[in-house]
Structures are given as C-alpha cells and as structure tokens.
C-alpha cells in the first residue's frame, strides 16, 4: 500500500493545529463559565 512518507509531524504544526481547535473551545468554555457564575451570585 502506498503511504505518505513526507514529514508531516513537525512539532510546530502540532502546536498550531492544537491551538486552532483549543482557542475557540477555550473561548466558548470561558463564555459559558461566565454565564454559569450567575448561579452563585
């Protein structure tokens, strides 16, 4: 079976790709957390 042998696993790529999904997720969690805090005020 033919496989892709290019180096696709550069650490910077890894960090960038994780940041790409975690930044919007973190923003969403922060917005929800702010809303949830109203319960304890």
């Amino acid at each position, binding site marked *: 079976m*033919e496989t*892709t042998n290019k180096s*696709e696993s550069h650490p910077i790529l*890894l960090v960038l790709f*994780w940041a790409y999904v975690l930044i919007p*997720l973190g923003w969403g969690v922060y917005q929800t957390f702010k809303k949830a805090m109203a*319960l304890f005020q």
Partner: protein
Amino acid sequence: MSGFFSKERITASHGYNRWLIPPAALAVHLCIGQAYAFSVFNEPLTRILGVKESLPEDWKLTTIGWIYSLAIVFLGLSAAFGGKWLEKVGPRRTMFTAACCFGGGFILSAIGIKLHQIWLLYLGYGVIGGCGLGLGYVSPVSTLIKWFPDRRGMATGMAIMGFGGGAMVGAPLSVMLMKHFHSDTSTGVMETFAVMGVLYFTSMVIGSLAIRIPPPDWKPAGWTPPTEEKKMVTKRHVHIDQALKTPQFYLLWLILCLNVTAGIGILGQASVMIQEMFKGRITPEAAAGFVGLLSLFNMGGRFVWSSASDFFGRKNTYFLFFALGTFLYSMLPNFSSEGNILLFIAAAAVILSMYGGGFSTIPAYLADIFGTKYVGGIHGRLLTAWSTAGVLGPVLVNYIREYQVAHGVAKADAYTTTLYIMACLLATGFVCNLLMREVHEKHYMRHDQVDDDSLNG
C-alpha cells in the same frame, strides 16, 4: 479527485505523530456541536418579517421547532446508512461530504430566510445539515480508535467532547453575529447563517485534509498489545451487518437510548425546573447559569468518563453511570423538598457529566465488543438510539408533566414523578448492561474474510 480522497492517499507513514489526529476530529466536532445551540435562532426566526416584533405572517415557534427535530432525525439516519460507506471510502471523503452538507445546509437556510420559505430551512439545516451532522459525528471516531488502541476511551472522549463544546462556541458566536448584522430592516439571522456556513465549511474541510489513517501493521511506539485476550475486549472483528444479528447490539442500543433519555430529562427543562422547584430563590439569570454549568459538566464528562473507562473497563463504567444515576435522580426530589440547592445542583451536574460520558464511552464499548474494523459503521447504526431518545425523551417528559399539572398537581411537585421515571429508565439500563456478554463465536469474521475485506475496502 477521487485519488485525493482515497484511503491510500491518507494512509500515514510509520513516523506520523498520532497527536495530530485528535485536533482534526475536533475541527469537525466543534462545528457540528453547534446543533445543540440551535435554539438561539428560535426567537429571532419568529420575527424575520416584523424585525422588531413578530407579524401574523411570520413563522411560529412550533413551525421553527421542526428544523431541529429534522436535523436530529437525519443525524441518526445518515449515521446509520453512511457508516458502512465510511468504512469503504475512508474518513477524508466522509468528513469532506459532511462539511459540504453542514456548511451547505446553513447557506441554503440563509436563502430560505431571505425568501421566507420555511421548506428551504427544513431541507437546508434539517435534512442536508442533519446528514452533515451524522456523517461528521461518526467519521473521525473509528479513525481515532485505530490510532489509540491503548487509550480508546480517551481518544473518542476527545472528539466527542468537541461536540459538547461546539454549542459553547456556537451559541455566543451566533449571538455576536446576529448583534453585528442586526439593523432596522433585518434581524441579522440570514447574514449569520451565511457567515456560519462558510466558517463551518472551512473548518471542517481543514479537519478532513488533516485526517490520516494508520498503516495496517501500525502500533504506538513502546506499546505491546496484550497477549491474552481480556474478557469483554475482543481482538477479532464482527462485520457491520452481522453486528445487527447479535443481542449485544440491541443491548448497547438500549443502554445509549436510556442514558440519553434520562439526561434529556434534566437538560431539556433545567432552567424551568430549578426555578419551579426552588420558587423565589432562583432568578431567571441564575437559572441560565445553571444551564451553563450543566453544559460544562456535560462537556467535561465526555472526556473524563471515557478516559476513566480505559482503566475501569467499559462495563464497569456504565455500571457506575446507571447505579449512581438512579440514586441521584431518586434523591433530586428530596434535595428540592429540603430546600438544599447546593446538593441539587451538584447531583444534576454529576448526572449531566454521566450523560456526556455515555455518549463518548459508547464507541470504545463497541470496539471492545465488535472489534475495531467496522466500529465506525456499527457506531453509526447505534446512533439511531440517540435520534429516538432525542425525539421521544422530551415528549415523554413534557407529557407526564402536563398531565400531572392538568390533574391538579402543584408545578413544583410535578417534576417528582418525572424524576422517578428517569431513575427507572436508568435502572433498566443497569439491567441491560448487566446482560452484556462477549459476542458468540459464530458472529466473528474468519481471518481470511478480514483480509479479503481489507483488499476490497
């Protein structure tokens, strides 16, 4: 073009870093998770013509409600029918198709809003978008299981956590966009749909481009597959069609369906429930905060519980879900009558974390029982349990409550019966899980059948 999407093209080299796969899956699940936040559009969609207030010609809430219901039904149908196709063509083509359906569904709905044609929204977000939801949901899950044979639960938990998180991104993003595009002549919903369609399409395509499948003989560095076959974790494979002939498939279907129905029992009416059960002590703002808190636990539970199931075992994890869930549901009316808000909130939060955990642990449970080869397709068919619970759950809960209120039961007490019924559903789930055994010998594929199928697939 077909080569670009082929399984051969996306088969990674042995040195490929498997930690690039979870963000590819998250890029898709964070988008399709928006479905949970669809309700933010409900009210603005009722005043498309009137803008400031609803006109008689504007759509009614009951008319709009069908958009989400259709999307959930088509999620289940497309996952059930598309799962087998996914195993044949691989995750890149399926994820790309999901991106076209989900993004395209938003764009078609935007046109529907512009022309004020509700059937375009039913077709756009409901049917086509729903197909995008189903295909997008199942496509990265089996790939993750193959990349993380040592941590199946954690791997599926990461992706399915994204689905829970998608609503947290989708809801404030929609509100922000609607505010931005709002004018004297527009509610801003049409423009928001168009922008979100483009955004979600782009993000899902990025996920589909990044996805890779492991080479056939690949295993994680330093990991040796256990030499002895663990009880309830098979090394063999059951074909998708054969899986439907096993009692295990139907037991797992019931397990998922009951767990989801019970979770919806709280999630669907959390805001009203806490305000009525603690009358005068919980403001509408605090109730909205309660819903937010439950969403956080729903999302966190998806990762935490499925990761924990790698250590406890899948069957034990579901035992805990059902036993603890039954106990906590039965205690909620007591906490309410004692006026103990803190315990009520804590119990509801734990229940919701197990609701999320039930979603994310099920693919790993399927892989343990039926093997990893066709887990994507089998998972797709099992998701019809979610569609069933998504439609029946709220109906069941609302009808029981309405019936009681109509028969003179106080609003605060009307929830008691509902909560006890939810506890009974979870107790039934406990029995289903208790009945789970390994698949009978006759259902497994022979080695030559697995190899033949690999060549054809």
